[in-house]
């Protein structure tokens, strides 16, 4: 059977499964549509949240980023997991007790203001729409590589499948498809990693294999890797970072941003009890960790595999002849994601780091520049081919990559559509709307959100790489501080919260646009995006944490000069702090 047929079977079977689940889990009420009826088991919810959270970026790009950056890019591993500690202790249990449907619901009620609700809706829509573009394009890439259709066709197919289960099933359909998608993506990620770990270290568990002995050289794997990259002019894989302030702030921004993402927060509204919300955050991180503990192993092993493929006799000997390159390099050359240019006309593939410090050595070896460009994103997708695994594993990776993109897209689309139908229509524009009317509005906004996401996926606005950073920056600087202050302070007033959110949003956007261009339009940046120009060496991607601090300071300052929240709001804050009853304000 051809590889194409195998891929088609795997992807087709996974789609049939998702649609089957959608038919079984149709939403009958707004409560089912928004929060899956509020009766999801905490372990099930943990699995669904893990799929909801792990996007195309986690599945496809993260290992490549770590492979390229080594220790320095550990920030993604810590940043994208540490946020769950914040969610479990600072937000999820109290928002579950509050017991409504959306994130702006809490902000609107707690800060007794339609303005606050509207600010939250605007922030939510900006971050979710930018985030969903990446998922649609990610699905398009996976389709075009594995199913030999154009990227555009791939995006339309993906949109069609999401349409079926998200519009009819709402949160209920999305929850159970996300569980299935989690299973598909974790199997797809783990199997090639286990085989590669066995080949390199004889250890079947990648997370341990990474720290054990490299069979071929008899040295620890990371020592071997450091040796090879050093010989080729790269920084040591395990080398320390000098700009620690930026590393801390970037990690912190990712953590706070994660905790402030509405599509993740609303998943905790689906469990029956406050205690379940706490357990569920723990289970979510367990399921995420299965992938996140494997990712650094995939990264180091793939980097080692790539370099030993290019330099079969070691980095001090000659590089491989282009004519003798393995099949996987040929396959990926066709996609343009691996490119070779014979700069010194010796027919060999020289891969090294072109730095001034290495120039003398390169000249001595007769090299005229780095000849191989490898896109980071292919490492995970090419892993089965690099390890010579059978065709069905490649099919599985295809289904896994698409599952990662679709599950996150569906979660984001639900967050967008519920903000429109519930917060805008039901709570601001037309409070008299009937249950049936709101349900229809929810489905129409879902369909509209899918169309918008498809349109943006087909015509990505040229800044796709930066948008995820934007989403995290906004989540960190706006929603997370507002939610946290709403729970932990009775004194923060409506005016304070609005001022805080707007200050956080505006300052963060200004900082990002200063270096990346106004609305990401190339050439409109006011300062070059380099370390020397960053204030205190803080990168625009790390600025969310600073935006959050500005939000807190402004909110407290404005609250101290405005009237305290009314008594019933203070009672509301009391009530969300205790799992049972209306809280201390009610005399039982």
């Amino acid at each position, binding site marked *: 059977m051809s590889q194409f047929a195998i891929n088609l079977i795997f992807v087709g079977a996974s789609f049939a499964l998702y649609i089957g689940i959608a038919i079984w889990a149709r939403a009958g009420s707004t409560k089912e549509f928004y929060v899956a009826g509020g009766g999801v088991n905490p372990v099930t919810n943990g699995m669904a949240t893990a799929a909801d959270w792990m996007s195309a970026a986690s599945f496809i790009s993260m290992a490549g980023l*770590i492979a390229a950056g080594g*220790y320095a890019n*550990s920030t993604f*591993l*810590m940043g994208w*997991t*540490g946020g*769950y*500690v914040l969610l*479990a*202790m*600072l937000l999820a*249990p109290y928002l579950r007790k509050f017991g409504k449907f959306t994130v702006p619901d809490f902000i609107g009620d707690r800060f007794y203001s339609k303005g606050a609700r509207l600010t939250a809706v605007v922030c939510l829509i900006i971050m979710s729409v930018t985030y969903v573009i990446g998922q649609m394009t990610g699905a398009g890439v996976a389709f075009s590589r594995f199913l030999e259709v154009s990227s555009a066709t791939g995006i339309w197919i993906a949109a069609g499948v999401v349409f079926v289960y998200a519009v009819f099933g709402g949160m209920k359909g999305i929850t159970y498809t996300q569980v299935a998608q989690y299973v598909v993506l974790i199997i797809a990620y783990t199997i090639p990693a286990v085989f590669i770990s066995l080949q390199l270290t004889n250890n079947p568990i990648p*997370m341990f294999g*990474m*720290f*054990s002995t490299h069979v071929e050289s008899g*040295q*620890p*794997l*990371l*020592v*071997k890797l450091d040796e090879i990259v050093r010989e080729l002019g790269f920084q040591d894989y*395990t080398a*320390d*970072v000098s700009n*620690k302030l930026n*590393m*801390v702030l970037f*990690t*912190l921004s990712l953590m706070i941003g994660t905790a402030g993402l509405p599509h993740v927060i609303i998943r905790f509204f689906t469990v029956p*009890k*406050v*205690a379940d919300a*706490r*357990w569920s*955050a*723990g289970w979510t*991180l*367990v399921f995420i*960790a299965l992938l*996140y*503990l494997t990712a*650094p192993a995939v990264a180091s092993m793939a980097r080692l595999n790539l370099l030993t493929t290019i330099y079969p006799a070691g980095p001090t000997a000659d590089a491989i002849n282009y004519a003798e390159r393995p099949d996987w390099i040929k396959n990926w050359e066709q996609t343009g994601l691996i490119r070779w240019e014979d700069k010194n006309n010796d027919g060999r593939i020289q891969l090294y780091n072109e730095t001034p410090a290495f120039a003398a050595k390169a000249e001595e070896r007769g090299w005229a520049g780095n000849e191989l460009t490898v896109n980071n994103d292919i490492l995970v997708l090419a892993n089965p081919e690099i390890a010579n695994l059978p065709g069905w594993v490649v099919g599985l990776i295809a289904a896994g990559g698409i599952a990662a993109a679709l599950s996150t897209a569906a979660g984001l689309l639900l967050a967008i559509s519920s903000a429109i139908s519930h917060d805008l229509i039901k709570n601001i524009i037309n409070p008299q709307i009937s249950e049936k009317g709101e349900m229809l509005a929810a489905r129409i906004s879902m369909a509209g959100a899918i169309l918008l996401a498809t349109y943006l996926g087909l015509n990505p606005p040229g800044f796709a790489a930066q948008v995820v950073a934007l989403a995290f920056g906004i989540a960190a600087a706006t929603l997370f501080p507002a939610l946290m202050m709403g729970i932990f302070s009775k004194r923060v007033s409506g005016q304070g919260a609005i001022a805080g959110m707007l200050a956080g949003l505006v300052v963060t956007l200004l900082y990002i646009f200063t270096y990346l261009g106004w609305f990401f339009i190339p050439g409109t940046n006011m300062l070059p995006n380099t370390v020397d120009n960053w204030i205190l060496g803080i990168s625009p991607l790390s600025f969310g944490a600073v935006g959050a601090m500005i939000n807190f300071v402004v909110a407290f300052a404005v609250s101290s000069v405005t009237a305290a929240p009314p008594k019933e709001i203070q009672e509301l804050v*009391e009530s969300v*702090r*205790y*799992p*049972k*009853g209306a*809280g*201390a304000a009610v*005399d*039982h």
Partner: protein
Amino acid sequence: MADHNMNAAAYWSANLRYISISLFVWALVSYGFAILLRPMLAGISVGGTDLGFWFAQQGSIITFIAIIFIYAWKMNKLDKEYGVEE
């Protein structure tokens, strides 16, 4: 009523205490061991590299999981002690 309020305040301050301890450990393993204190831990080797590298790539994630489960367990016990469990 007065008694109930005192209980509620004690419950909330116990929660805040658990949160502070958990956040201290959360920051210690990630910002501490994995980033700022890494040079100090360079002497402790783990599988061909140092302890700080392990914390950055795996140790902090494992610690985060432990923190959440311990917090959930302690809080669920606290809920029962104060009679506020659902």
